[in-house]
């Protein structure tokens, strides 16, 4: 029996590796996902049925019910959720995985003869509980921050020190339990609560713009929690699967940081929310010029090259369908239209591509940053919709700016720039954007969806 289950796990492990590999290429991504999902299903079924234990029917029924309930809820959420909510959803699911690991740890601590087992096993159990708890509460906070429920940016002086001291305290308490082989439910729950609190403290001060990086990091941690649980059961599929997610997650996190020209340390320790450089920029901003939908429509109608720069504001306003309508209309009128996609447009790298793909925008109309930047010189009109930080020239010119050095879309090279924004409020990074004060820029204030609908109506009348 044992060897059969081992073979099942071996096959599942291979599907995970192949699946992840295929997920990295556009043409094979879908099959990669299905292969990994199949392997996971195989491992789950194998775990339930291939063993020598005498298991009462009741437990089989309970497992069946749990799987059914989880599948129905998970499936429904996955199908119903709006694509704009994708980052939140990944975060939420990730939190569930972490919680699952923590619960397993709690049960195993209860089952184990703490006085009789090795320090290594107690360490494993406690690590699963603490890491699982951190990812659970951290993911929930990240979820809340992304959907706007959790707003507060805590500004306690020396926050990082407080945070790190707290973490060291948890580790110290854990070490005490391990070394003393202490069988205490109270200390166990203290560690659990400690992990939960640390997860909150860890994510709370990190700025919203950095949330995708945090989610990716937490995702990696869940993988590590799964791997630790795997060690506990000497279970290879959990061990290898978890480590794979852990290391791949770290690489992905670093890749995301690179796209934003930030280091992982600056994301975690230097919250992006600082208002530090605002005073520095304010002095030479000058005045802004606003425009109307009809003027903008005329401008685009007589242009030969138009580039649309979509940002998260577009997604929030659910304007991705209207923008496609606008783009089709312009194309019909003989205007050459393209979308300029910044790597971190939206709330996650690649998020904007998903959103526009959902509205049936042709894949080849989406041009990546490095390819579109040289073309702005020949662009007549740039229409910026709900994007801010990714077109902020401060990234090039202002060494004091928190986004200095971040690669941006060089829209200021175009002949005319129309910026659609709801108000002059600063972007996610909380800093001023001198692009709005550029003499070539005209501000088109209003909700993205309403404004674009007006633009479409104006264009239809021409």
């Amino acid at each position, binding site marked *: 029996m044992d060897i059969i289950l081992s073979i099942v796990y071996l096959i599942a492990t291979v599907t995970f590796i192949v699946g992840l590999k295929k997920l990295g290429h556009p043409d094979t991504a879908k099959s990669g996902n299905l292969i990994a999902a199949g392997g996971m299903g195989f491992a*789950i079924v194998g775990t*339930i049925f291939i063993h020598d234990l005498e298991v009462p029917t009741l437990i089989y029924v309970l497992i069946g019910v749990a799987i059914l309930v989880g599948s129905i809820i998970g499936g429904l959420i996955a199908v119903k959720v709006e694509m704009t909510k994708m980052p939140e959803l990944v975060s939420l699911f990730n939190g569930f995985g972490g919680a699952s690991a923590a*619960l397993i740890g709690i049960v195993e601590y209860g089952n184990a003869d703490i006085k009789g087992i090795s320090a290594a096993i107690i360490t494993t159990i406690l690590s699963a509980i603490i890491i699982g708890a951190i990812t659970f509460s951290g993911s929930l906070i990240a979820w809340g921050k992304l959907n706007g429920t959790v707003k507060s940016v805590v500004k306690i002086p020396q926050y990082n020190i407080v945070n790190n001291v707290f973490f060291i305290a948890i580790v110290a308490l854990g070490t005490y339990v391990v070394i003393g082989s202490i069988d205490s439910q109270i200390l166990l729950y203290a560690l659990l609560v400690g992990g939960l609190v640390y997860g909150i403290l860890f994510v709370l001060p990190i700025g919203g713009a950095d949330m995708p990086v945090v989610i990716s990091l937490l995702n990696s941690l869940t993988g590590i929690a799964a791997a630790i649980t795997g060690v506990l059961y000497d279970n290879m599929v959990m061990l290898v699967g978890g480590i794979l997610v852990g290391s791949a997650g770290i690489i992905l996190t670093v890749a995301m940081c690179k796209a934003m020209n930030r280091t992982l340390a600056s994301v975690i320790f230097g919250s992006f929310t600082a208002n530090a450089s605002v005073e520095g920029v304010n002095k030479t901003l000058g005045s802004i010029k606003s425009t109307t939908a009809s003027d903008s429509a005329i401008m685009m109608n007589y242009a030969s090259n138009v580039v649309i720069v979509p940002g998260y504001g577009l997604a929030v306003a659910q304007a991705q369908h209207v923008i496609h309508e606008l783009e089709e209309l312009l194309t019909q009128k003989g205007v050459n239209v393209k979308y300029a996609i910044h790597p971190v447009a939206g709330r996650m790298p690649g998020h904007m591509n998903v959103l526009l793909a959902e509205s049936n925008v042709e894949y080849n109309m989406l041009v990546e940053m490095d390819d579109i930047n040289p073309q702005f010189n020949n662009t007549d009109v740039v229409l910026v919709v709900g994007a801010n930080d990714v077109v902020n020239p401060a990234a090039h010119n202002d060494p004091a700016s928190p986004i200095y050095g971040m690669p941006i879309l060089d829209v200021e090279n175009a002949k005319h720039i129309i910026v659609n924004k709801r108000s002059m409020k600063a972007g996610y990074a909380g800093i001023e954007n001198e692009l709005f004060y550029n003499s070539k820029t005209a501000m088109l204030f209003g909700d993205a969806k309403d404004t674009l609908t007006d633009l479409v109506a104006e264009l239809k009348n021409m």
Partner: protein
Amino acid sequence: MNELLGFISSNLQIIYIVILSIFVGIEVIKSIPAVLHTPLMSGANALSGVVIVGAILVMLHSNPTDYVALTLGFIAVVLGVLNVVGGFAVTNRMLDMFKKKK
């Protein structure tokens, strides 16, 4: 010190597997286009739901009268399945959108 060496010698295989897996994970993910970061993160997230295997093991090993363990195990299975099914389904949905453009 002796205890540490003892730990290493009795877990040598696991240590090998962990180190090799780390490198496999890095190699597999290296140099992927930014377009795929979101689906990849979501897919990796679904994979981390492998913790469900542990949750099932908890339930299989539980004494049917140990209601605390059974309840916690039950919740762990539900949450793990949510992670797995939701994760893969949502990744599939995202990738579907890319596909029909081709």
